[in-house]
């Protein structure tokens, strides 16, 4: 929290690959905890929303009273980094959601779920990310979303060869369609932790 040398960061642990994010954050020296209750959310100075199934995270977060406190935290400027399903959760507009699917919002984006097709279209590729410098980031896309519209308040950080946007930033918010927690390249997590320390 404010004033402490190593702020506690959380990883939303309702479903998905939250353990991998916790491991990366701890490897970088952060005090990382799983968050699935309001009391846990209150302890953290930054939050990662992991990969997983966005429709399930949405349902559980609303069912257990976590959605409103999460929205309030995002609005109040808490740094939040969403990967894949987490990016969907942060987007103001979700395209191709299941019936009744909502998002936490805050990120001025329209994000399309499963934008590449089925699992057969999941892929790995190298991605230039100017904000992170060289070398390119090796990125893993699994039934991944893409950012279809980058709103005026948001900035694209990386795009595929065909121009589709897959990494974005907006003040306290960071999002990637892919999974840096799976490849051992910790630069996005470092970028996020720098936001937490600056907040």
């Amino acid at each position, binding site marked *: 929290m404010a004033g402490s040398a190593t702020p506690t960061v959380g990883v939303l*642990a*309702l*479903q*998905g*690959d*939250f*353990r*991998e994010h916790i491991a990366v954050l701890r490897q970088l020296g952060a005090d990382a905890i799983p968050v*699935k209750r309001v009391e846990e959310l209150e302890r953290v100075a930054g939050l990662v929303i992991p*990969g*997983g*199934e966005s*429709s*399930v995270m949405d*349902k*559980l977060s609303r*069912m*257990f009273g976590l959605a409103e406190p999460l929205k309030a935290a995002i609005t109040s400027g808490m740094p939040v980094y969403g990967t*894949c*399903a987490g990016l969907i959760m942060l987007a103001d507009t979700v395209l*191709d*959601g*299941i*019936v009744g699917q909502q998002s936490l919002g805050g990120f001025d984006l329209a994000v399309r*779920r*499963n*934008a*590449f*097709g*089925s*699992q*057969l*279209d*999941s*892929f*790995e*590729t*190298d991605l230039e990310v100017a904000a992170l410098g060289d070398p390119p980031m090796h990125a*893993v*896309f*699994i*039934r991944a979303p893409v950012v279809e519209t980058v709103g005026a308040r948001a900035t694209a950080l990386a795009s*595929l*060869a*065909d121009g589709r946007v897959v990494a974005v930033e907006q003040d306290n918010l960071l999002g990637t369609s892919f*999974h840096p927690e*799976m*490849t051992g390249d910790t630069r996005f997590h470092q970028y996020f932790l720098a936001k937490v320390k600056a907040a």
Partner: protein
Amino acid sequence: MSTNSTSDELGTSRVKRGLAEMLKGGVIMDVVNAGQAKIAEDAGAVAVMALERVPADIRSQGGVARMSDPDLIDGIIEAVSIPVMAKARIGHFVEAQILQSLKVDYIDESEVLSPADYVNHIDKWNFSVPFVCGATNLGEALRRITEGAAMIRSKGEAGTGDVSEATKHIRTILGEINALKGKSKDELYVAAKELQAPYELVREIAAAGKLPVVLFTAGGVATPADAALMMQLGADGVFVGSGIFKSGNPAQRAAAIVKATTFFDDADIVAQASRGLGEAMVGINVSDLAAPHRLSERGW
């Protein structure tokens, strides 16, 4: 839809195992048609498993159980946007080819269906679509991983509503992994021999203390408490087969099992989720099943 460029790598081990990573902490539900798939998705399933008949019906009706009709699988893919898995018979690589051509997201080479080959499992490295396979112990899990499985589920005893075999299998697999930790190199050679699994894989697991792929559990999970039990025992997630659509109120029971899987460590929430669900599937005690009717003994 996809416009992958030529430098992209498709169907890699990382991508195959990665989808299972994203399903962790979730519930995968057996469905036989689009209507059930929709109910499962609305209830919070992370994926659905398409099969011709749920295991309880395979048991009661008998006969050869096979891959679903492609029309039904297309209907299920059309109806939901969560991942769709589908079952193929053990060793039936043509059913698997068909499922890949239908673009399912995962293939379950499953003992719940009638085996097509009593000697060989499918060479799963030949496919771009990932596979999940059942296992009753670590050696069996490692043989499936060697053949290319990207996810393992402990078998349990499907279609019974009796969780005792699921408990036994997850405890066995995790116990055998624990037993590898701290073994010296010469002991690991013997362990590999006893497990009937490749030494390199055994050494990797001894060092990591876990499988290189996600481990779900299956076979007899019928209540929120059963799901929470599996999670507390160390499963990464659960498959629920007949337990949902053979119960009195599938939608409500499915949602309750999802809640209990996420909050498996919170007895108050599991208690709340267990209330007022109506009738659970009737079930059969595994001990009452004659050995030839035990599905978990199929596959080796």
